[in-house]
């Protein structure tokens, strides 16, 4: 399961409480400012390679602004703040990827989470939501997660496919 990472039509995006960082792999020229300046967040050897909990929002913005291409761009999650961003914020989406400014990819336009009860199978959750289990809360972005409904999974609370062997009906 990938946390704080989501795919969308223009690449991938990574969120913390304040900002979303967009990654467009096809635009990367490996100038490598991101991981030389902030390996805690941008680590190409890790999956997902961006960890938004690795540093402060200010530092992440500073390093994203160093990217010489549109491979990395960022925006405030609070859309009201995006219109008034200064032009010294080189890699804000307003300047780097204006096509994202009016996309439906905003928190104010949140789609309901899709919850499907599969035939004789798990509960499949899809979208953006908070998942709380074992005393921890995780923010899930644009991901699909299957929760066991038959009671026999070895990876609770997640489905591991054993409902078939168990002959679960319901």
């Amino acid at each position, binding site marked *: 399961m990938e946390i704080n990472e989501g795919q969308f039509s223009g690449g991938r995006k990574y969120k913390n409480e304040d900002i979303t960082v967009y990654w467009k792999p096809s635009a990367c020229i490996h100038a490598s400012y991101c991981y030389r300046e902030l390996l805690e967040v941008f680590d190409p050897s890790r999956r997902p390679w961006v960890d938004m909990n690795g540093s402060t929002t200010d530092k992440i913005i500073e390093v994203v602004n160093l990217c010489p291409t549109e491979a990395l761009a960022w925006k405030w999650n609070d859309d009201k703040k995006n219109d008034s961003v200064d032009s010294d914020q080189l890699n804000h989406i307003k300047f780097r990827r204006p096509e994202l400014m009016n996309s439906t990819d905003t928190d104010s336009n*949140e789609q*309901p*989470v*899709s*919850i*499907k*009860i*599969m*035939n*004789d199978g798990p*509960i499949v*959750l899809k*979208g*953006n*939501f*908070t*998942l*709380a*289990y*074992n005393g921890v809360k995780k923010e899930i972005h644009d991901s699909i997660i299957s*929760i*066991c*409904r*038959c*009671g*026999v999974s070895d990876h609770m*609370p997640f489905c591991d496919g054993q409902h078939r062997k168990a002959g*679960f009906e*319901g």
Partner: protein
Amino acid sequence: MEEKNGKKSQAIIEVIDFGPLKITGNFLLKDLQRNKEESPAEVNLCRCGKSGNKPYCDESHKK
């Protein structure tokens, strides 16, 4: 569930220890098994496989 500006708040999916999956907020539940669709304020979905009222929890896990 609280609503702000007429908009439902983000969905919260809570795995209750030794209990059901509790879901609140903005969600759409599609039951493909029973061909039903609904979006109530809250549901508790069975995780133990024993409920007599699937997909909902009926507390059978406590027996």
